[in-house]
């Protein structure tokens, strides 16, 4: 098995120790950081995704894989050359104003990170102004909003409207999700996509950005 395949397998199995060891070996051997990420770490998650979708793997297993991947990421990220940093896409994520639900949002953050994206987690109860400010500050390509309440999901529209006012709507894709949110609702408020779960968010982000 190639080193990349071994690293991918370690991510798939959720073995953080093994991921750390293999990543260190590759770093010492001078493998390019972006290659370690794409062909090793993220490739491991690409084994997980279809198995999760097919019902062969379960949420806690996906979390173990994502966590193992995160350990490798921590080691590799500081080594990425400045010229390459721009190649990593940024996604701003948060739960909307008036809403404190964070379990689903946290899963999304973890899974997006496992897709090799730079994820800015704003937390919960985030106002439209804060979302827009973060999109500007981090020069984000994607904004992800979560809402678990029917009363708070309307605030997603306020954020999208504010993005328009600020002339940013064309620069950022908006993904929405959460229990009461639907594809119809996403279309109604002018979001770019509805994501049913964390894995869908990662796949949607990947297809938009690549």
């Amino acid at each position, binding site marked *: 098995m190639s080193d990349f395949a071994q690293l991918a397998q370690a991510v798939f199995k959720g073995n953080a120790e093994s991921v750390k060891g293999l990543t260190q070996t590759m770093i010492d051997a001078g493998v390019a950081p972006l290659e370690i990420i794409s062909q090793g770490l993220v490739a491991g998650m690409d084994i997980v995704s279809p198995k999760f979708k097919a019902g062969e793997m*379960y*949420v*806690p297993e996906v*979390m173990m894989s994502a966590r193992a991947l995160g350990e490798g990421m921590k080691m590799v990220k500081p080594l990425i050359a400045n010229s390459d940093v721009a190649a990593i896409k940024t996604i701003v994520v948060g739960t909307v104003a008036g809403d*404190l*639900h*964070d*379990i689903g949002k*946290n*899963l999304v953050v973890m899974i997006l990170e496992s897709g090799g994206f730079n994820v800015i987690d704003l937390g*919960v109860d985030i106002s439209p102004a804060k979302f827009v400010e973060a999109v500007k500050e981090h020069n984000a390509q994607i904004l992800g909003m979560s809402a678990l*309440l*029917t*009363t*708070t*999901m*309307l605030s997603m529209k306020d954020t999208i409207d504010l993005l328009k006012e600020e002339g940013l709507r064309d620069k950022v894709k908006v993904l929405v999700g959460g*229990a*009461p949110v*639907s594809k119809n609702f996403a279309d109604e408020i002018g979001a770019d996509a509805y994501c049913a779960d964390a894995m869908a968010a990662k796949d949607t982000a990947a297809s938009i950005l690549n």
Partner: protein
Amino acid sequence: MLIVGELINTSRKAINEAVDKKDADYIKKIALDQVEAGADYIDVNCGTKVYNEVETMEWLVNTIQEVIQVPLCIDSPNPKALEAGLSLCKYGQPMINSITDEKERVEVVLPLALKYKAKLVALCMDDTGMPETAEDRMRVVKSLYAKLNAAEIPDQDIYFDPLVKPIGSVDKAGDEVLGTIKAIKEKYPDVHFMCGLSNVSYGLPNRKVLNRIFVAQTMTLGMDGYILNPTDKGMMGTLAASQALLGQDSYCMNYITAHRKGLYEE
């Protein structure tokens, strides 16, 4: 034991379609099915109808009450929809789902509970967010209980919901809930409980097994209210069996009745 039937919720596809088509017969059938299966209250939730929730709530409450005479559990994060539903309740003591210890929520929901003499589902969360541990939850319980008590809401009208999270993403979620039930029961012996428990098994295989065992575990510590699908025979059978084992079923009559109703036929 108090069972709230959860099926009339517009986040469910069939209910959403029935509401859109004003298919009163379907709504009535689902209400009646739940009562016949043993529901004490019928939950009414049309929160996904964000643009006409109030009208939808009115139509649902009126439609349901044409066929059944059990009290309703009016379920909405929107105070206007709560009031619309409560003002139309005709049978028994209505229930509000839910109040939390978030400042705004207390300000709008507590007056409604007093005005309509409603039972209150009280979620263990506040402005600081979702609780992690049993201690976090107890902090909210104490603060919220003090407010409800000061407003003279009787203990037996308070139904604390310990907030069940998925064990698939939070390892200790089940255990923290059990610890919360125990602590509430010790401190406030006369309040009741309510929980939607299917959350506990999210993202895991064999969800039914986890849900049923969690019923037995929570009931053992004093949980006495569940919001669930009462037409799920296995779940209702588990409830009856658990009650009998806990000495809450004189001569095991409910358990035997459940058997005769076929709840244990797999």
